[in-house]
């Protein structure tokens, strides 16, 4: 293959990574923005989405498309419910203290991963894509499902944006983000907003997990890389800014696709983690963030 098509393939792969990453990172960013909670268990929610998608696809009879749609509906809701429970039982009692919640979500991460290992097992299992359709480009064929993932992620993010800016619930969430004390004074039930935000963030991660599972298999340790990459995206995009998160997801996903096709992935990851550390040290508001 010549260089041009090779680069195109790398960019397309990068676009798929960006789409999944943007969904997961939007959840992380939302939780951080509204609640000021750094959710270390975010990657575990992503993994749970994928594993539950496998479980649903295994137990729901019928054609792959039906099973996949069932998984798309059930897995994020189940994960969101779990996250809501974790919020009520743990985070709320810690009064959302930033450092205590990090320790608690690390504990949550360990418990979820161990539960997945014990109940689901150490194997990686595939889920069949809802449709088999290949686009034939002049140079190579490309999976239609991957393009569907990009489209679906774009639609979900658009819906999220509309929800945050155009609905009353979104307005309430933004009000809580700006000033939780004043929001409470205006009669907003901040506890419920927090629970909903945490559930929504976890649901977005789980949705990303469901979308990725037909491409890469479900495995109990699969949450590590998305967690790290989501952190990178959220930090570079500016903590708590959805628009910055989206731009950063595109930049990171595309460059990850290109770099890991031409260089070793380990070196790419080393450079990316160091870059993030440096951004946090020298430009804490993020590369695209407007305010501190």
């Amino acid at each position, binding site marked *: 293959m010549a260089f041009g098509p090779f680069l195109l393939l790398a960019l397309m792969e990068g676009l798929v990574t960006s789409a999944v990453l943007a969904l997961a990172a939007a959840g992380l960013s939302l939780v951080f923005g509204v609640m000021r909670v750094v959710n270390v268990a975010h990657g575990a929610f992503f993994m749970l989405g994928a594993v539950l998608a496998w479980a649903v696809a295994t137990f729901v009879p019928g054609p792959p498309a039906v099973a996949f749609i069932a998984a798309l509906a059930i897995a994020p809701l189940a994960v969101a419910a779990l996250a809501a429970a974790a919020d009520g039982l743990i985070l709320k009692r810690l009064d959302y203290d930033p450092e205590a919640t990090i320790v*608690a979500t690390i504990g949550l991460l360990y418990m979820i991963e161990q539960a997945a290992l014990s109940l689901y097992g150490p194997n990686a299992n595939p889920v069949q894509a809802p449709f088999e359709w290949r686009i034939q480009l002049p140079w190579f064929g490309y999976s239609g499902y991957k393009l569907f993932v990009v489209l679906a992620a774009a639609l979900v993010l658009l819906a999220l944006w509309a929800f945050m800016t155009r609905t009353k619930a979104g307005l309430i969430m933004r009000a809580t983000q700006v000033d939780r004390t004043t929001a409470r004074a205006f009669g907003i039930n901040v506890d419920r907003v927090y629970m909903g935000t945490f559930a929504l963030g976890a649901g977005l991660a789980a949705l990303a997990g469901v979308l990725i599972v037909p491409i890469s298999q479900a495995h109990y340790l699969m949450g590590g890389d998305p967690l790290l990459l989501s952190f990178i995206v959220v930090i570079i995009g500016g903590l708590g800014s959805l628009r910055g998160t989206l731009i950063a997801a595109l930049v990171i996903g595309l460059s990850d696709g290109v770099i890991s096709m031409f260089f070793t992935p380990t070196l790419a990851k080393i450079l990316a983690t160091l870059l993030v550390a440096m951004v946090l*040290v020298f430009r804490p508001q993020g590369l695209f963030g407007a305010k501190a």
Partner: protein
Amino acid sequence: MKVWLLHLVLIAALFAAQFLLSPYHATNLARIMVLAVFAMGYNLAFGYTGLLSLGHALLFAAGMYAAGLSAQILGLTAGPALILGILGGGLLAAAVGLLALRTAGVSFMIVTLMFAQAGYLTILYFGATTGGDEGFTLPAASRSIAGFDLSTDTPRFLAALALFGAGLLASLAIVRSPFGRTMVAIRENEERSRMLGYNPFAIKLAALVISGLYVGAAGAAYALLFGYAGASFATIQYSILPMLYVLLGGAGTTLGPFLGAALMFALIEAASGLTSAYLFFVGAALVALVLFAPKGILGTIRERWVKWLP
């Protein structure tokens, strides 16, 4: 006076323990003492200075590889290798601190986490030298100090005890010194200590470097006493473990790190007899601690009953 006596009694009790315990349990106790040195270093940064780092595995691995690789490649014996390990931990702590201490709170946690992750990946990247995930066993010739073979039970136990005892007494001296008081002052109110004329950045950096010396010593000792160095010791898990020990035993208490390491070791030992799902207990312990006992065991005891506990 009774504070020093209490610490000396603990060291004496540990010395006596080797005659009472089976070789298996004595080796476990030696392991606990080395991990306790790791936790004591973490405690000086987190418990006393309020620096919640998620990257101490980097310093542990620095000590481990500085000692392990110098033994493997240069053929050094345990004494010089340990010194290199201590220096490795301290130097890396200084480098990380100079950058990471420009941030605070959550950013500090993430920056240290990222540095540790980069360190772990670097070990994997140079897998030809470091052995990557597989790691390497240290040459038997290097595992001796002053003619004693550290791979046999008694010298190993005594070496671990000597390191632990020295670390414990040094940490007691540090926290009771004027410098230790300023560390606590920074933890409690950084702005006020700045107003009183202290330089918080310099004090935090010094605390982090001391912490790095401890953690480097623990990493080097772990490699030299148990004969193995591997990339798994640089993973995030080994940044979480000392935090868990310190939280369990009591952050900001001199004896807490040892108590936490011993209890957690025993808990995991007991749990892994019942089920292979021991990580679940680690997670549950973390959640339970922050929820119900944020001050840890000794922290609670100090608050309620024994006020003089350091």
